[in-house]
């Protein structure tokens, strides 16, 4: 820039590329772009999503976890309620492959329990001569799969007359691994179901309020304000107290889901409403109206896709909120009740000082809670980026 202009009449300094010139390059580019241009919205989202490595990994992890909870009964070595009075507070057993220098496949050493009369602590020692080979696809505790049919096939079982506590046992000698697997089913579905419920409520109520405005909007807004101004813990307590104790665990579970869903839709309804207030002024909405579309169709086909990215992001971010909500409720003793088991229940049982000092493996359910919540957050992040592929 600093170089002064050449003398008048002298040639301008310039650059000429020596690469070969292809006059049809533009046409070929269009051919390539055609794939993108003709790709569906979903495909575009997938391409975008694939580039977010963390989100992809999280997504795969979550799918695996949700597949697992469908077959908890099969995966867990013991039944949820199997007690082993002789193995109370047994620490996690080490899974081994080599015995005395030779490979024998996965096994655990048998344990002997001794009560230390001085500290009244149960001391477990490995019996190095007692090799208990694990069995796979084996018959163990019987269970009712999904409460439908009786079976006793497990992925992995302890040796006959042996025990296998991969994550230790709790105060009644119940296997922690099995309890975590069963607990996952409740904790993970309660989040998904709760979110579904709050979504339906949020989109329908928020959508109608935003699209129609007027008196309906006014009422909905005030109701939301009232709902949001109620402190949540006392409200939970009140709602939880309404659920009669004699209800079956399944009904309580549904009840808690409804409670969580009922409290959560307000924020989403507001977001939907404000977005619709803006979008309904767009020309394409007017066009649709002129063409005679009803409000349900306009909202569904023309407006909702417009803020899909927001919806997806908030859905994935709400699920962990729900899981934590259930955990917190159960931890406070307001949510689910034994015998139904969720991660919150497992953590409630592990909150005394004794556990932290002496039996730390009972705190293990924290790990799946953290992993699942992180995975949902990463997934939500990736989906939000992907949902707006044109950006």
């Amino acid at each position, binding site marked *: 820039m600093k170089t002064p202009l050449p003398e008048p009449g002298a040639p301008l300094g310039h650059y000429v590329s020596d690469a070969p010139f292809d006059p049809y390059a533009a046409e070929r580019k269009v051919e390539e772009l055609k794939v993108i241009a003709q790709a569906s919205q979903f495909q575009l989202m997938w391409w975008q999503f694939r580039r977010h490595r963390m989100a992809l990994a999280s997504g795969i992890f979550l799918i695996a976890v949700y597949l697992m909870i469908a077959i908890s009964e099969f995966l867990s070595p013991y039944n949820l309620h199997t007690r082993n009075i002789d193995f109370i507070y047994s620490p996690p057993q080490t899974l081994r492959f080599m015995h005395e220098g030779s490979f024998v496949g996965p096994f655990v050493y048998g344990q002997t329990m001794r009560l230390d009369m001085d500290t009244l602590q149960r001391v477990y020692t490995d019996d190095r001569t007692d090799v208990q080979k694990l069995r796979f696809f084996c018959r163990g505790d019987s269970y009712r799969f999904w409460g439908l049919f009786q079976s006793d096939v497990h992925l992995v079982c302890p040796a006959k007359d042996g025990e296998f506590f991969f994550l230790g046992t709790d105060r009644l000698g119940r296997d922690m691994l099995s309890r975590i697997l069963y607990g996952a089913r409740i904790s993970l579905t309660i989040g998904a179901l709760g979110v579904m419920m709050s979504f339906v409520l949020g989109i329908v109520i928020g959508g109608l309020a935003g699209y129609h405005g007027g008196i309906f909007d006014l009422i909905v807004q005030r109701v939301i304000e009232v709902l949001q101004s109620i402190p949540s813990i006392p409200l939970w307590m009140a709602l939880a107290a309404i659920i009669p104790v004699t209800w079956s665990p399944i009904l309580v579970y549904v009840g808690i889901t409804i409670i969580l869903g009922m409290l959560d839709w307000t924020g989403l309804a507001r977001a939907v409403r404000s977005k619709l207030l803006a979008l309904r002024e767009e020309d394409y909405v007017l066009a649709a109206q002129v063409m005679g579309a009803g409000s349900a169709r306009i909202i569904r086909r023309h407006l909702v896709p417009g803020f899909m990215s927001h919806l997806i992001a908030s859905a994935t971010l709400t699920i962990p909120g729900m899981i934590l909500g259930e955990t917190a409720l159960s931890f406070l003793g307001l949510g689910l009740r034994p*015998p139904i088991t969720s991660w919150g229940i497992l953590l409630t049982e592990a909150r005394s000082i004794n556990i932290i000092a002496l039996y730390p493996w009972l705190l293990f359910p924290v790990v799946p809670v953290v992993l699942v919540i992180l995975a949902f957050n990463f997934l939500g992040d990736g989906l939000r980026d992907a949902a707006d592929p044109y950006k």
Partner: protein
Amino acid sequence: MITRRATLGLLAAAFLPGLARAGGGESKYLKDKVDAGELPPVAERLPKVPRVVNTAALGGEPGVQGGSVRMLIGGQRDVRLMPINSYSRLVGYDRDLKLQADILESYTVEEERIFTFRLREGHRWSSGDPFTAEDFRYCWEDVILNRELLKGGPPTDLLVEGKPPIFSVIDDVTVRYAWEKPIPDFLPKLASPIPLVLALPAAYMRQFHKKFQAADVLEKHIIKQRVDDWRGLHIKMSRQTRPENPDLPTLEAWRPRTAPPAEQFIFERNPFFHRIDENGTQLPYVDKVVMNVSSPDLISAKTATGESDLQVANLDFADYTLLKNAETIYPINVLLWKRTLGSRVALVPNLNCGDEGWRKVLRDVRVRRAMSLALNRTEINKAVFYGLGQESANTVLPESPLFKPEYAKAWAAFDPDQANRLLDEAGLDKRDDEGLRLLPDGRSAHIVVESAGESTLETDVLELITDHFRLVGLGLFVRTSQRDIFRSRAIGGEIVMSVWYGLDNGVPTPEMSPLELAPTADDQLQWPVWGMYYATVKTKGEPPDMPEVQYLVDKLTAWEMTTTEAERETIWHDMLKHHAEQVFTIGTVNGISQPIVRSRRLRNIPAKALCGFQPTAFLGVYMPDTFWYEESA
């Protein structure tokens, strides 16, 4: 007739004067005040005949004064543990649960109805005012008989067939209570952890009494103390069970120095305490007791980090391992004493419950027996108590002279077949589609067991019991609430079954009243309404309409008329046998250990002992005033 008790009282009296008066030196803690002339020297502070505690004979050793003991309490109201643990009573139990004169110099009992108390000459309240017959007279004439103060008249504990005793002052240090009929549980009530009050510091209390105080001054007090009337004022200022008034003179070993609200309550030695050790050193040894308020959940953790020098309250058996492991890090020592409870966890069917269907079923003895037979006590013992407890019905412990193995074994074996049979016979022979029995009125047998939610131990046991009950076709559900709500719901009949402790006093002697076995109080969860009937002298509640329970009432009445120990023992056995057969409460495991944590330097605490509210007043009978620090801090 002079009974054994009277003899004991006389013996104590004859033994004492032979000993020299306070030979020990002045307490360092009080020395400044004595030198300044605010307090008289120790020889003048003690009564002429102090109570000599022979620590060596009790298995300990005489110690030195000084130091302070830190304790943790779960809330401000728990300062009430102080007068229980300190345990100075007119008449108190010793370690063998025999009655002996404590504050009194001696007493005589004639025909179990005329009680003559002799006070210690020169005995003073912690304020320095003399403790004389006048304090008894004030308490009797101006408080107990004052209709304005006690609207219902004298407390039922003092009535025999509705009649109070005749009170007379013989001389300055002798008073007498004379009834027309025997009242055998009069002395045990004086020795109870929360005793019957017969004496109040008249010199101090008169200022709050309408009869002795000008109306305008009284009014000022009423406003200052934020009470409704002078009655409330008098009750508040004279409350001895919760030492919240630091100005109220006391006869206990330590006097309160803190008024609530506070996070820390300080008690300092009572300069006029009436006990000395065999060397003549005035007790208590420890100068100060400091009670820190903490959250109940945290007490075991705090104790395990050495924040308490002497801890019983809020420690549970399950904390033992944690505490024991802390021994290597902090200078504490954990002892295991034995709880005196008849059962650590007991199921209590409410015979007064409002649910008519359940009430009928629970009143059927076969149902109660079946529930008891359905429990697998061995599993409960193993799972929750390391197998160290005794599987037993809710009855007295083997340590009690009244124990018989058949009481403990009655309907306490694990026999689901017999339980099923009994339930079938009782008319619960139909089942619903979940396999639960149907009540005669057609509902499924869902039992909601309510718990005060104070210990995880109860929850664990209930979880096991849920499965045991399932085997006999009964569904069990747990609802947790909070102690006060729980009590009022029980009285209101809203609770069908509750989970609570068994008998408070599992080590009774025939001399102690069997009132826990019969309806006598509204906190008896198996029959709160009938209990209330007798607790309120038949003004509230209802009389029992079950002959089985009426039997217990009659037996208790008979016990209250007895004059000899043999009669009392027979009646005790009648009642225990009846209790065992009727299974009014369903016991699980008893003889559970209670961890006691002490500072390693604290001496004279027995290594093995019984511990409970009744009858040992927690630490009370082991006399915490004789505990001392090896090297004074």
